[in-house]
């Protein structure tokens, strides 16, 4: 009995404790179920979202960038295939060996190797790392052929911007480059690695239209980031093509005509404002910026004294010199301080106050009226005209002809030039206007500066009968498109309010400039009557000629260092019979406008008339060859 009782004690204790522990365990299971209910029901939405974020990766699809075309569809900026060789670390046992084998086929230097290995370290093993880009087709084919012996090597054809004409259109088209920190905005495309954005020129101004809109694809990825499958895909909108007013053939001709000279030239349709050529010489190769400019290339561009990175056609501000004289004359006519017949005697200099103002012709021109003063570019006549008219009236006329104001052209970095007034001098320099300064203004010197584009616009406004044509670089197919009726075009612009006979007097002077025997540019005239050109020479001083030099001997331009020589200018319009084209040419430190700028202008004006881009209808845009598009039909 005693033994049984003790056994019963043990059994009773066991039973009680087993039930206790069993209940406790049931309670703990209850806690587990509570926990699962919390996670799977109450917090389910939160975790569902997190799971989706884990699983789905949004990838942006870069749209194809629009092309930049000339007015006839020639590609000035396009996209070319970018042949790349990449390496996938997980597909090769030995990265070094593969790189070594690769270096026997294409150039893979030590820095490239180090970069590749660094990137492989940083990234997941299945992410391709670029070894070499922009390979030639030959190299690419070679690697392709040997790919069985190159474990881990992956070939890829991407796209990259291409500027087939290198430096010819660099200042118009501009270039693209990697997105900088400050440029990152709302568009997620800009954060794509390797994405290119317009940095200057049309590429920059029209960047948003060229860029297009990003597409995206939703990709399911695993925990290591490897893509499993594509869930959804929205293709983006490719960028628009931008058609310029530029005639590629004319531009190339003009660029080449400048040769080794530093300078700028602008050709404009006087009725529509279409810019047919806009040259700044020397140019630079925009492809350098696209692929990433190297140190030596950058130093070369920056150190060049001809400043290839500056777009001289819109950023170069030069004293207009004698090309300003028509404008001074018109101001005087309108003010009534001069009449067409007012005569001024030129003894070769003019004394005013304590100073003597010299005419470029030492012996003097004798008696001049307005037309002959323009023809022979008599300084004394225009000293007198400006003295009588005053700076403010001259400035007012300059403004109407488009000087001292932004033309508003769709290119980057345009400068405004400077047309001084009395108020300007008082406000900016804090000094009253001196009477003597009027005289200097009369020959386009002193404070006056303008860009070549402004001078071309000025000439266009004179030649089209006084309509305030505005330059444009992107072609619009409105009524101002390829019209052959200049009157239609001219009606679109406001008139600047000059009387016809006053304008005609200025134009007569310009026609006489290219007319022998006395015209200053008669040596650079176009002899074919139907293409005859009118114009105006200009040689603007870069530095003041000192009294000492005057008294001893004025050095000839050829004797001075390049930087001190005069700028050579020429503005022109043609044909005289029915003006259509105007141009402005400047050769930096070229010396004489008649000798340096006028011949270049003549050749360009002859070429533009032969090509006659304004009168030709536009061919369908497409990859037209440069030579095919603009062959003159009526040339010769």
């Amino acid at each position, binding site marked *: 009995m005693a033994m049984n009782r*003790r*056994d019963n*004690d*043990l*059994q009773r*204790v*066991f*039973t009680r*404790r*087993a*039930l206790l*522990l*069993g209940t406790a*365990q*049931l309670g*703990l*299971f209850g*806690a*587990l*179920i509570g*926990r*699962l*209910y919390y*996670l*799977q*029901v109450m*917090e*389910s939405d*939160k*975790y*569902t979202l*997190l*799971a*989706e974020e*884990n*699983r789905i990766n949004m990838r942006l699809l870069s749209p194809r960038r629009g092309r930049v075309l000339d007015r006839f569809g020639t590609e000035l900026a396009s996209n070319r295939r970018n042949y790349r060789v990449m390496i996938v670390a997980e597909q090769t046992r030995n990265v070094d060996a593969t790189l070594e084998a690769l270096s026997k086929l294409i150039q893979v230097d030590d820095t490239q190797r180090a970069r590749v290995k660094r990137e492989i370290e940083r990234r997941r093993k299945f992410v391709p790392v670029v070894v070499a880009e922009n390979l030639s087709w030959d190299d690419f084919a070679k690697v392709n052929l040997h790919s069985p012996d190159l474990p881990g090597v992956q070939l890829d054809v991407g796209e990259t911007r291409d500027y087939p004409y290198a430096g010819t259109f660099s200042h118009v088209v501009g270039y693209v480059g990697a997105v900088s920190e400050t440029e990152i905005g709302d568009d997620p495309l800009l954060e794509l690695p390797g994405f290119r954005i317009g940095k200057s020129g049309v590429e920059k101004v029209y960047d948003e239209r060229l860029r297009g809109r990003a597409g995206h694809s939703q990709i*399911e*990825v*695993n*925990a*290591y980031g490897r893509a*499993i499958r594509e869930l959804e895909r929205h293709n983006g909108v490719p960028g628009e093509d931008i058609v310029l007013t530029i005639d590629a053939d004319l531009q190339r001709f003009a660029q080449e005509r400048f040769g080794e000279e530093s300078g700028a030239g602008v050709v404009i349709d006087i009725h529509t404002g279409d810019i047919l050529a806009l040259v700044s010489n020397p140019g630079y190769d925009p492809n350098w910026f696209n692929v990433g400019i190297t140190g030596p290339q950058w130093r070369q561009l920056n150190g060049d004294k001809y400043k290839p990175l500056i777009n001289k056609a819109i950023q170069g501000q030069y004293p207009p010199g004698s090309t300003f004289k028509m404008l001074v004359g018109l101001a005087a006519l309108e003010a009534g301080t001069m009449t067409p017949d007012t005569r001024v005697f030129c003894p070769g200099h003019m004394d005013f106050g304590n100073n003597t103002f010299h005419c470029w012709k030492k012996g003097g021109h004798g008696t001049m009226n307005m037309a002959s003063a323009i023809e022979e570019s008599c300084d004394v006549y225009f000293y007198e005209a400006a003295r009588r008219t005053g700076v403010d009236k001259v400035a007012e006329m300059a403004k109407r002809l488009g000087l001292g104001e932004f033309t508003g052209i769709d290119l980057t970095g345009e400068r405004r030039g400077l047309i001084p007034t009395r108020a300007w001098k008082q406000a900016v320099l804090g000094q009253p206007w001196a009477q003597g300064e009027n005289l200097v203004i009369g020959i386009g010197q002193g404070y006056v500066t303008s860009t070549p584009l402004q001078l071309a616009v000025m000439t266009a406004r004179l030649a089209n009968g006084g309509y305030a044509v505005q330059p444009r670089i992107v072609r619009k197919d409105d009524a101002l498109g390829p019209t052959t009726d200049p009157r239609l075009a001219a009606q679109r612009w406001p008139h600047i309010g000059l009387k016809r006979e006053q304008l005609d007097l200025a134009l007569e002077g310009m026609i006489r400039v290219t007319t022998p025997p006395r015209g200053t540019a008669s040596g650079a005239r176009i002899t074919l009557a139907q293409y005859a050109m009118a114009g105006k020479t200009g040689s603007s001083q870069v530095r003041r000629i000192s009294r000492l030099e005057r008294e001893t001997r004025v050095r000839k331009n050829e004797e001075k260092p390049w930087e001190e020589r005069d700028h050579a200018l020429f503005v022109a319009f043609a044909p005289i019979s029915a003006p259509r084209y105007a141009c402005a040419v400047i050769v930096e430190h070229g010396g004489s406008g008649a000798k340096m700028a006028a011949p270049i202008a003549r050749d360009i004006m002859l070429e533009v008339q032969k090509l006659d881009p304004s009168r030709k209808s536009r061919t369908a845009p497409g990859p037209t060859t440069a030579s095919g598009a603009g062959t003159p039909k009526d040339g010769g």
Partner: protein
Amino acid sequence: MAHWSSRGNDQSFGRKLRDVNWGLVLLISLIASIGFSALYSAAGGDIDPWADRQMARFAIGLVIMVMIAVTDIRIWMRFSYIVYAVGVVLLIAVELVGRIGMGAQRWLDLGVVHVQPSEIMKIALVLTLARYFHGLSYEDVGRIRWLVVPLAIVLVPVGLVIKQPDLGTAMLLLASSGAVFFFAGVRAWKFLLVIFGGGAALPVAWNFLHDYQKRRVLTFMNPEQDPLGSGYHILQSKIALGSGGFSGKGFMQGTQSHLSFLPEKQTDFIFTMYAEEHGLIGALVLIALYILLIAYGYAIALRARSQFARLLAGGLTTMLFLYVFINIAMVSGLVPVVGVPLPLVSYGGTAMMTLLVGLGLLINCYVHRDVEIPRHMSGL
């Protein structure tokens, strides 16, 4: 032999086989089958490489389980100290020449098979304690001097396992041993003393933890603080569970598991994958099956006539509970990640074998429920 004469002492083999609780075997197979389907899903819809091997092991294990169940309980009682001694020797051997896996020495390479002595010890410890306490009267159990030996029996292997280091198994051994002590009638105040004493010693114990163990505990406290480091597993497991929602993503549709966000999806985290695909509903079904299994275990323990069978069944059932609870609590972020598999479901041969041996002993307690064992048989 006369005092062994009561019913059930001399059952025939056939009768024992009929006495095996086949309902329990069915329940075990059901849980294992859920494991097979989960392993099939974990392999992306393939029985290779996990489900097929697991099924083969289970089939073999099932036979072993039944064989263990029908072997006379007294034989197991007799061999328990020997098994324990072998277990301790193997643990020492592992300390000397063991293979390193997962940063700890756990495996012993015996040429043909790899043995994990700590697994043997899980069963051996319960067996040994059951046998020891079987020999004590209720009064003896209340005396401290009779507790010195069983404490040594527990602390020697626990110490060796901690040294490996395998904190999870050590705690499992401690807890299941504690349960046997408790069932055996060790007075409640002694447990309270040990619990409070242990709590006070925690800061000291902390210093003996390995860095990775400390990190796991710290990570457990605040997993979101380090989502890409060691907190990653817990966070991803919670995301998988939570995103599974009420009804789950569907069989083989678990994105967290199939896209590898979930670690160890075929072993320790298989519950997460299962609950991601089958939702709270599926989780409740599986938990209900486990509760049923554990209830069965207690029923067997309560029905057994000998103290040895009671303690053995009670200890094994508690161990089973601990496995299930710690695993699910771990993957749902209630306790630190300690590396305890989900019984019968997680992929792994050793754990499967241990469990089926344990369950075989549990069924054995049922088959031999009426066998009376004299107290003196406990002695050597």
